[in-house]
């Protein structure tokens, strides 16, 4: 993880169009952007597109990043807005149904080695958006509670609380299908 000084320096270089700075920032934050996008749009493929679009948008608007050292939090806000816009467009495009909105369809790829994604996505769908963001940033990205608190503008104890409740709910959700299978078996 980069420190504040390094981030600010990279942002200043990126403002001047420096490609290595763009690359360093993308490497440092694209995964986090993906996690936050996934927390909203619920589909990994869509989340990748949203993260990519949001990162580009952020690079184009670097001049309006008033605190370069807080680039992460600023970027994640852009990601959140992009993801919500994406959801709106998806709702307009797709025929409404009552299925679970988080990747409900078992895609071919999901049946193979990536098959474990589906129950995870279903379980994540049961969480509130902020808990999804916290658990993805912590358990997938490896962010600390300090970093999460700063990026999501919540307190560290609140971040811990969200994580605790998110993990408990995820475990409960993930254990449910197994119980059903046992019952049916």
């Amino acid at each position, binding site marked *: 993880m980069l420190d504040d000084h390094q981030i600010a320096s990279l942002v200043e270089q990126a403002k001047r169009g420096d490609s290595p700075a*763009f690359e360093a920032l993308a490497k440092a934050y694209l*995964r986090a952007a993906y996690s936050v996008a996934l927390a909203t749009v619920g589909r*990994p493929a869509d989340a990748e597109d949203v993260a990519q679009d949001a990162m580009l948008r952020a690079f184009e608007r670097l001049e309006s990043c008033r605190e370069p050292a807080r680039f992460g939090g600023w970027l994640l806000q852009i990601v959140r807005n992009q993801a919500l816009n994406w959801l709106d467009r998806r709702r307009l495009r797709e025929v409404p149904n009552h299925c679970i909105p988080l990747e409900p369809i078992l895609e071919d790829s999901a049946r193979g080695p990536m098959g474990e994604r589906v129950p995870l*996505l279903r379980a994540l769908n049961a969480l509130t958006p902020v808990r999804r963001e916290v*658990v993805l940033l912590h*358990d997938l990205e490896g962010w600390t509670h300090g970093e999460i608190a700063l990026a999501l503008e919540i307190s560290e104890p609140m971040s811990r609380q969200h994580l605790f409740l998110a993990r*408990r709910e995820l*475990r409960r959700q993930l254990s449910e299908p197994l119980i059903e299978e046992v019952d049916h078996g």
Partner: protein
Amino acid sequence: MDDSPIDLSSLDPSREPERWKQLIDEVVEQARAAHCRRMSVAHQLVAWTVPALAIAAAFALVVWAGALSVAQRTATAHNSAADPAFVLARWAMTDERPATSAIWQVFGERYDRD
């Protein structure tokens, strides 16, 4: 109660490193291209058009307001100098004895206008 991390690795986009690297490369390339576009002459011209027009409009407004003020003051002064009552009063106050031609000039202008 078990509070160990949940294994979310199946959602990790960088599980396919080549694809993830390609994604980052695309972002970098597009960001670089967008920056070049912003720096191009045409884009700079477009970007400066609005502020330049605003400055020009503000300048024109200031000049127009100044000209209007000067014109009003000149018209007032001219009207006063041409008014026979004003001229007579001035002559009286300064104890001036005007030439006949000046008297005719003052009153003549008035007759001409009537």
